[in-house]
């Protein structure tokens, strides 16, 4: 094996020379602080197939675009991983920024790119040729422009970057809606009249469902009904719509319709300075703001190349695991709600969650929007009385209550007959569709980033990667209990090991210096792989800020999961994916 010619040897140290496998085709990235390989778009599918089949990169975690507006260039960045563990591989395609921006779709190599490619098309206008259903996903069909492009401006646009100059030293207060009336600040398609507008997106949506018009066994054509579940439906955990085609009670087609809660988190993130993004990440998966903080802090710390204070690392782990415990407890409660066991299990779960949130409030000041992590550490130390409460919970109350939950539900015959044998997804399909988190592990793939590619201090703890092998609803329920037990194990070790010392390796500054480069930080959030891809150009604001949200990627195989099942099971099948709309729609 030849040594790779690369400016960043860490990236390829444990990897291999892709350029040797594809001479004159693939070249190593040469920009400082950038990693990976540049692949020409003509050879993209070929290289990707080789990566999957010859080198074992079976899980494609992210696909996202970057708009290098000043260089008149667009880039599509891919991060691939092995489910057996180890560091990932990054490769990219660069194309001129001229409409149409075209890149071949990798949907035949990794079907999991489906929604992520649609997202890149929607927000950046990168057309993936060969994608069978390249519709907009977060914005509506007929929307003018691609919002993440650097020359696109949002309503109430003030300036490209925060802080805005109008705030200080001459902050003459005005309401933004007075200065920027909505109509002056919106782009409409040509000849657009809101009075006469009929959404054409629905026709396209139902058109894409019509692909499943099969005749029944007797050769008779039967009527199929298109049924919209949501956006306001109690079982969809928020504003999620599933356009279902049903034959009797059997689902024969399903398209998720999302974006009702879309706020272009990534554009906001690119306007913000680095530290200003921290409270915005809280609002992604609002059940697990500590985990979101963690992922973002890791990405920026990687980019800044700074260490984390040791005590802070332990505090981070404690908070992240507490948030996992409360997430899984509430998941179990809500799953039971979905199944019709209204409120009792959910409220039992909420009681424990409440106590955990009290801890978050005591250390960070807020129950849900914690904003607790800073680059290099955390914002403030855990006071002794709070530490005592964490100890009481972790060593006594939570094990007892998890056990109680187990006794309460696990053997319940009604629950078992409702859940057992309802197939969610098998391991192979799950990996193909980039599903991560408990759903993947319940399908028999022991892939947990805390073990596969350890971050923070997770390599110091003894714990098992929870795994179940059937991949049915019941396993998806059980794995949450298993993970709570493992989290409690980690917590008990972390509390015993936590050292004294400073809680931040950096001085608290309100504007951090981030060198030019890119970084992808990922953690095992309670819902799956949560990744933050950040590109810096050395300025106080990130050039590109992308969130790889587990909820969003995990619903990619929703149609495959639900085809052929009964409509009553859809509620449970969707429920076990454990999606949160704040993160799904971003």
């Amino acid at each position, binding site marked *: 094996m030849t040594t790779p010619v690369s400016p960043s040897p860490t990236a390829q140290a444990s990897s291999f020379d892709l350029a040797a496998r594809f001479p004159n085709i693939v070249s190593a990235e040469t920009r400082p602080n950038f990693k990976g390989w540049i692949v020409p778009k003509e050879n993209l599918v070929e290289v990707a197939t080789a990566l999957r089949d010859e080198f074992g990169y079976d899980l494609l975690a992210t696909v996202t675009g970057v708009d290098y507006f000043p260089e008149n260039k667009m880039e599509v960045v891919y991060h691939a991983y092995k489910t057996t563990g180890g560091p990932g591989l990054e490769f990219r395609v660069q194309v001129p920024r001229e409409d149409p921006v075209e890149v071949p779709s990798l949907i035949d190599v990794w079907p999991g790119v489906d929604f992520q490619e649609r997202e890149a098309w929607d927000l950046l206008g990168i057309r993936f040729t060969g994608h069978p259903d390249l519709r907009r996903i977060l914005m509506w069909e007929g929307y003018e422009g691609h919002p993440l492009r650097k020359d696109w401006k949002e309503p109430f646009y003030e300036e490209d970057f925060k802080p805005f100059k109008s*705030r200080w030293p001459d902050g*003459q207060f005005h309401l933004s809606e007075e200065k920027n009336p909505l109509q002056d600040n919106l782009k409409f398609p040509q000849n657009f009249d809101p009075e006469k507008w009929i959404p054409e997106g629905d026709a396209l949506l139902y058109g894409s469902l019509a692909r499943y018009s099969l005749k029944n066994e007797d050769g008779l054509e039967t009527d199929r009904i298109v049924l919209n579940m949501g956006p306001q439906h109690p079982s969809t955990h928020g504003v999620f719509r599933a356009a279902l085609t049903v034959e009797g009670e059997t689902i024969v087609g399903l398209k998720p319709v999302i974006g009702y809660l879309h706020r272009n988190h990534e554009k906001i993130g690119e306007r913000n300075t680095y530290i200003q993004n921290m409270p915005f990440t809280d609002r992604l998966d609002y059940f697990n703001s500590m985990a979101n903080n963690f992922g973002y802090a890791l990405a920026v710390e990687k980019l800044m190349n700074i260490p984390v204070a040791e005590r802070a690392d332990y505090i981070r782990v404690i908070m992240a695991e507490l948030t996992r415990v409360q997430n899984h407890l509430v998941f179990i409660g809500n799953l039971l709600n979905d199944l019709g066991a209204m409120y009792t299990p959910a409220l039992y779960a909420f009681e424990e969650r409440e106590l955990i949130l009290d801890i978050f409030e005591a250390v960070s000041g807020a129950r849900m929007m914690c904003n607790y992590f800073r680059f290099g550490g955390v914002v403030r130390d855990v006071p002794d009385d709070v530490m005592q409460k964490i100890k*009481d919970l972790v060593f006594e109350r939570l094990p007892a209550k998890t056990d109680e939950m187990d006794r309460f539900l696990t053997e319940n015959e009604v629950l078992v007959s409702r859940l057992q044998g309802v197939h969610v997804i098998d391991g192979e399909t799950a990996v193909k569709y980039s599903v991560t988190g408990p759903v993947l592990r319940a399908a028999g793939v022991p892939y947990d980033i805390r073990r596969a590619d350890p971050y923070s201090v997770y390599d110091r703890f003894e714990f098992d990667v929870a795994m179940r092998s059937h991949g049915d609803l019941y396993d998806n329920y059980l794995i949450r209990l298993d993970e709570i037990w493992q989290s409690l194990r980690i917590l008990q070790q972390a509390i015993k090991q936590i050292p004294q010392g400073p809680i931040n390796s950096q001085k608290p500054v309100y*504007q951090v210096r981030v060198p030019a480069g890119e970084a992808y930080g990922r953690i095992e959030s309670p819902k799956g792989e949560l990744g933050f891809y950040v590109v810096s150009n050395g300025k106080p604001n990130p050039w590109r800020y992308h969130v790889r949200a587990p909820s969003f990627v995990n619903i990619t195989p929703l149609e495959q999961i639900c085809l052929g099942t009964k409509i009553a099971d859809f509620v449970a099948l969707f429920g076990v994916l454990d999606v949160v709309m704040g993160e799904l729609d971003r």
Partner: protein
Amino acid sequence: MYGRGILKGLSVTWKRFWDTYIEDISWLLRGKKRYYTEEGIKHRSSADTKGIFTIQYPEERLILPEEARYVPFLVYDEKPDGTKEQRCTSCGICAKVCPPQCIWIVRSNDPNTGRPIPEPTEFYIDADICMNCGFCAEYCPFDAIIMDHDFELASYGRSVYNMEKLLKPASYYKSIRPENYERNDAERKAKEAAKAAKAAGASAAQAAQANT
């Protein structure tokens, strides 16, 4: 036996049902009140809580931890002669670090010298946009802006807070965040002492110079 799991589960709810009464009676026997008292609320949000868990807001209120944060306010010190001294120097760090950019500060200049006066002329916080992140209070070098504990902010119109609404005395700060106040106060005193010592040293040096 079929139905064993259900019975097991029901035993859990059965136990939970009685827990409230057992707790109530044990509190009664000890002659303490479990409801509408601070002690009771504290116990109900501790790790030992059993039985009914609800805090009956607004008759009962959760005890906020010191770090709890809601829309910020500005601190002024009360001087012995009754005048108010604002801590804010209108340096603008809070306005710059604010993620939703909801802080607006007017810094005024001395008409004679043209230099900035270390006191804001106007200070607005758009409380409807504020996301209660606490950055302003965290990065303020003068402890002039502090996160409040008042969370009952509902109103019929837009809540744009001006200086009149924002300014609150240091004694209020002390009442909601005693530990933070003590820490900051000690820091401020140490800083002032250092400054005074430096000034004294400088004047002593000057005096020494003048003598020679």
